[in-house]
């Protein structure tokens, strides 16, 4: 083809197509084959990712769903005045002197009595073994209940108490008779007793609201661990992020997109925003520790600090889609507004911003969803912690210690007791449900309100 001096005859001449439309020539076949190959690759890629997703969801749901069911015992408990309120005044302050040890004895007596009434044999089990089928959390629950209702002392109440995590695991298939034989924390005899209690109607499994409402619990009582503090903590942080990043993010993007002069400074800012969106989130944690805790003196483990750190992290991730949404509003709208005499501010706030709002809100919600699942920056500001007290009501509650949903997943996976495995997966399910709802809202907003030109 390098020889071009040969005149027009040497030029590559595409021969007029003489093939039939019905029979494909070699080139067409090759092109069609390439298309078929590409489609097959695409189908394989989709199948692989779908399989990975199904496998992930299946494993999480199959491991985590038992966390939503829990084994409880319902027994009549006699609350003797001689033990629980020696003064007889029903004064909660005086009654608080009786510790959970005293209440554990009350529960043990009630359980032994209930077992005897049902005629269940407890041969080969010590009183400690019998008490061992009840959760260590039970005395604390009973104590709180009695201190809240001092008049119950002297009566016999039907009280629902948690079964021990190993007993609960037996009904969920996690603990078997064979494993109990090797397990130092439970005896097969206790499982036999638990089985008999189920047959007698004392023990039963039901939906576990406690998993959503209870606070975290220590390693000795996985059955009592719940997400209550973590959900509140995450919720508070999301409020802080929303309240701060929505106005700041929208103001920043409106200014940059509509008002800022195009010069080197705004170019620099633009590059920085794009870069900040890609900065690893732990960096914001270090910044938060230095600025909010060490410099500003805010408390450790508080949702306010978590919210501020997540705001910093989320801002660039909100500004970028917000600017894209503003940019997608056609210039003709602005021109028309200015043409009928509106000021620039009026054109932006009366016309451009409302039209861009669905896009901005979608970006906002997706930014919030990302912030909700973030653990790394919280590590450094003390939110990866064991917190058992519920934070107070807003705004004071923002300054109380709290945990967060992804943090709870993390701290449960490192616990020694096998009961926490299902709880960690259960927490992932709750987190996924929250994310799914937020993304669904984003999609609905986009579908309902987005205008296309």
């Amino acid at each position: 083809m390098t020889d071009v001096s040969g005149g027009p005859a040497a030029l590559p001449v595409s021969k007029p197509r003489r093939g039939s439309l019905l029979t494909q020539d070699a080139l067409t076949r090759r092109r069609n084959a390439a298309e078929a190959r590409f489609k097959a690759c695409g189908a394989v890629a989709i199948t692989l990712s779908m399989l990975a997703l199904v496998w992930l969801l299946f494993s999480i749901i199959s491991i985590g769903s038992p966390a939503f069911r829990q084994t409880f015992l319902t027994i009549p408990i006699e609350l003797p005045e001689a033990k629980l309120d020696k003064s007889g005044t029903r004064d909660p302050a005086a009654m608080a002197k009786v510790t959970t040890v005293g209440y554990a004895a009350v529960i043990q007596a009630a359980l032994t009595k209930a077992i005897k009434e049902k005629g269940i044999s407890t041969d080969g089990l010590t009183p400690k073994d019998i008490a061992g089928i009840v959760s260590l959390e039970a005395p604390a629950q009973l104590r709180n209940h009695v201190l809240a209702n001092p008049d119950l002392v002297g009566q016999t109440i039907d009280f629902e108490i948690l079964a021990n995590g190993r007993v609960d695991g037996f009904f969920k298939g996690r603990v078997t008779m064979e494993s109990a034989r090797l397990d130092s924390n439970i005896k097969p005899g206790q499982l036999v007793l638990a089985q008999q209690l189920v047959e007698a109607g004392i023990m039963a499994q039901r939906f576990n609201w406690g998993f959503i409402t209870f606070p975290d619990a220590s390693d000795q009582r996985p059955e009592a661990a719940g997400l209550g503090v973590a959900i509140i903590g995450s919720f508070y942080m999301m409020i802080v992020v929303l309240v701060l990043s929505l106005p700041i993010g929208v103001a920043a993007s409106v200014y940059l997109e509509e008002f800022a002069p195009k010069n080197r400074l705004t170019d620099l800012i633009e590059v920085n925003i794009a870069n900040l969106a890609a900065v690893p989130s732990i960096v914001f944690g270090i910044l938060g520790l230095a600025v909010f805790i060490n410099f500003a003196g805010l408390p450790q483990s508080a949702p306010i600090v978590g919210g501020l750190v997540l705001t910093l992290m989320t801002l660039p991730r909100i500004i970028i889609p917000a600017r894209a949404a503003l940019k997608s509003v056609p210039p003709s709208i602005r021109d028309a507004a200015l043409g009928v005499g509106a000021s620039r501010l009026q054109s932006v706030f009366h016309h451009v911003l409302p039209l861009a709002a669905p896009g901005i809100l979608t970006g906002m919600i997706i930014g919030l969803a990302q912030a909700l699942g973030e653990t790394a920056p919280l590590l450094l500001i003390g939110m990866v912690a064991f917190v058992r007290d519920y934070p107070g009501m807003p705004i004071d509650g923002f300054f109380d210690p709290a945990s967060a949903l992804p943090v709870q997943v993390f701290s449960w996976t490192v616990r020694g007791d096998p009961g926490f495995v299902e709880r960690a997966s259960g927490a992932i399910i709750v987190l996924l449900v929250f994310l799914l709802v937020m993304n669904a809202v984003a999609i609905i907003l986009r579908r309902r309100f987005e205008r296309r030109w």
Partner: protein
Amino acid sequence: MKSVKLGASIVAVAAVAATTGYARDNIQTAGSSTVLPYATIVAEAFGENFDFKTPVVESGGSGAGRKKLCEGVGENTIDIANSSSRITQKDLDLCASNGVTEIMEVRFGYDGIVFASDIAGPSYAFTPLDWFNALGAQVVRDGALVANTNRTWAEVNPALADKPILAFIPGTKHGTREVFDTKVIEAGCKEAGAYDLFFAASAGADEAAKKSDAAKACMTLRTDGVAVDIDGDYTETLSRIAANRDAIGVFGLSFYQNNTDKLQVATINGVVPTVESVAAGDYPVSRPLYFYVKKAHLGVIPGLQEYIDFFVSDDMAGPDGPLAAYGLVPDPELAATQAAVAAGTVMGPLE
């Protein structure tokens, strides 16, 4: 972005201004993940039975916890650092430079470190010498140092099972690794006579330099994949053993006690690790557990004195308490610790 950050800081400062007079009414602790389960058990019982809030227990590692303790005095700094190793002079210097001068050192018990393998596999009876000969980079053969080529436990010691050597040991950032290195590998190294050979071969200037060279050479482990560092926690070691059924893992005694249906424990020098055998000093691989209290916060943070008294009380840390039930080895000198805590005794300089 600068304007945005400025805005965020302004909001933060405004938030601070809005909460002047904020007083912390809960105890904040941070530190060792080994101490974490004990600290949470105590915190939970404390919150249940006292009129104070439940203390917040953060994990993050012994070193990180002590560093946080030394950040200064004030309500936005922690009150207690949990630690599975003793505080270092470096920490104390940092503390002193930040005005944290009075620290109470409380030793509340011991942690046993155990070697465990899959429940269905063969059982093992190890000595520190076996471990050195299995994992040391260089071992002694016919009175000379040679590269370690042992592939199975039976090659190390004919009494052991004929299984390939594969050990999951804690990564170097864990406090457990230090105990493993000194109490098992270095002890085995000295027993094998390798220490003396390393010492003789050292090019160190004086006695001390030679000693540290020899100790370092002892703790140099094989890099051909038989010793795998686990930087995560014990749950990761457990799942690695479930996947490699011939492997042996290093665990804390309490973790093993909560997973006895999946793991079997090996003896060291013929001693089975139990709370009793560690307490009696028969089982050699153990370490003390501490927490460090910032004395300046006593009387400022409500419930701090009550919490530390409660932590070391017989009801909690004693032989029949819940900590021992979970796997903590009670301190035989607990009474002295209780007296020191009640008196608020401040730790002196490190020996």
